[in-house]
């Protein structure tokens, strides 16, 4: 914050979203905290055209993992997470930090960044594979939106992710 004397509530440029931390995307190209779930897409280790859609519900910690064609993941045994779910959580912690992930899943933040599974109480749950997969496709579709020279005056409210390094 630039100054404690200036109320956050009365600043037009008050920061709201903490910038995401850079991470490798090859294994887990997409993670989001949305619709009450930590959800995302994990690349298949064996088939480049296949991806797994994995999710954990906030509060209940319901686990789900299916291929994009909605076939169940063989590695997920009810409440026991598969490698895709583990990779998903690892990517989410890398991107958002363990604190934000824990708050979203409605658990106390773990002692260490890697300890998030120890504070979850997973159960088996129905997946929302088509919804999450569409969300990933919409995410990718941003890369196809053409650039613009429109002056976009409202971007004065959105400074580029900061640099206090």
């Amino acid at each position, binding site marked *: 914050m630039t100054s404690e004397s200036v109320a956050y509530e009365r600043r037009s440029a008050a920061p*709201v979203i903490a910038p995401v931390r850079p991470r490798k995307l090859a294994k887990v190209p997409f993670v989001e905290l949305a619709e009450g779930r930590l959800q995302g897409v994990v690349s298949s280790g064996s088939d480049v055209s296949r991806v797994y859609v994995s999710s954990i519900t906030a509060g209940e910690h319901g686990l789900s993992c299916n291929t994009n064609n909605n076939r169940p993941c063989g590695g997920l045994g009810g409440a026991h997470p598969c490698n895709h779910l583990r990779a998903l959580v690892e990517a989410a912690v890398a991107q958002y930090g363990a604190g934000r992930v824990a708050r979203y899943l409605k658990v106390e933040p773990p002692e260490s960044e890697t300890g998030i599974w120890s504070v979850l109480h997973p159960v088996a749950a129905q997946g929302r594979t088509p919804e999450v997969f569409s969300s990933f496709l919409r995410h990718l579709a941003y890369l196809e939106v053409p*650039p613009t020279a429109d002056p*976009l005056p409202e971007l004065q409210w959105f400074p580029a992710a900061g640099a206090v390094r």
Partner: protein
Amino acid sequence: MLADTLNARPSGLAEAFALVDGLDDALVHGLARLDDDRAAALDALVTAFSATPLADRVTDAIGKIVSGTVTDDHLAVLAGCRVALLGAAHDALLGGLDTALGRSREPFPAAGAPGEAGHLVAGSRSWLRELAIAGWHGVDHELAAAGSPAVRALLADPSRRRLAVLLDGFAAELRAAAPVATLPRVPVRRWADLWARALILSQDDLPAGPAAPVDGRFLILGADLHEHPTVFRCQVHGLLETAGQVRLVRTSVAAAKVDTISGASAWRMLSAFPVLLSGLAGHRCLDVSEMTLTAGGDLLWDETRASAGEPADPFASARVLLGGAVAASTAPLDRHPAAIAEPVLIEGYTATTEALDLGGVTVGLDVERLPAAGPITPESVAASTAVIGLLRFDGDRWVIQPLAVQTTVRKKPVVLHTGDWALGPTEAKAAKAEAAAGTAVDVLRERAGRLLRK
């Protein structure tokens, strides 16, 4: 002179902000839940506008809202009240600054013909109405996500990009903050700003500003970078030398992106603009011909109408030409204190990592606007002797956002510009980090190629 202006506040500024705050506070709990205090704050607007051309509409709209009827027309009037109050605050603040800097500014010409009406903005209006009724405290995951269909439809239409980009950034904040009722602090002014501006842009028949083609030499002063999860934008402030005149203008290029593309690698998303990016990275002026300049001072960048010119040092340009350059006026509906970003050259100060002491006034350093995609750090500002920056006003104080500094790094004199890394970082450590992070762009493009065209 500048110090006096930066210390002083125009008369009536506090009163204008107090009225805006009253309106903004009503949006925290929602227009469906107005208690007596919040209703009184809205009534204060009726009094404040009683001697203006808006008087009848404000009286009617606020009367109806307080009695429980919230229509799109009533909300447009509320947004209009904010434009009037914050526009006046903008004019007073900028007028004072112009006087202190000796800067002349062309008045904004009469508005052009109204633009087209569109069904696309109806979806946006309806989401904004739901938000106003529920209030920020009523925003849950479902309501935060309810704006997505409107954003998708708007993004598909290039002429609606401005509203699409605004709504998408606003919606992302609401989604990240939902359920807002559990949030310790709510960005009250900010969300009211974004809400009101989106509502204005969602009206049918908005006037289009006039614009005309220009020829000349564009001398770069510096780049200002903007970003939210799905956009990265480089806005270049500069001087346009045309026959017989030097104008202070901006030009802007923006690309859609995703949240995992950030920092220096975001420049990769602007690869469609090699002439502009080379001008920034190579410190050259740019020759433009028949490029459109709007009345608001925005040069609509077109690579086919630009070519790289001679080497040009922004500090030399600023020293010689900035003082006499003529500025443009902001379009009437866009006036807002947070829209002020006035280029200045400042020398002869004492700097720390938090502020510049100009002798008689201390101007805060806007560290949140020193982007990771450029080389300037608070430390390089603290060691600097000259700065080209943007003066901004937010949270009741003036701050400076450096765009370029003449400074000392490891005992060597250097000049750093925000746009230096437009073609990739020039510093070894940052270049290495960018190379690693930059693969994100390739990975996602590859995934998009495989999955989107099935």
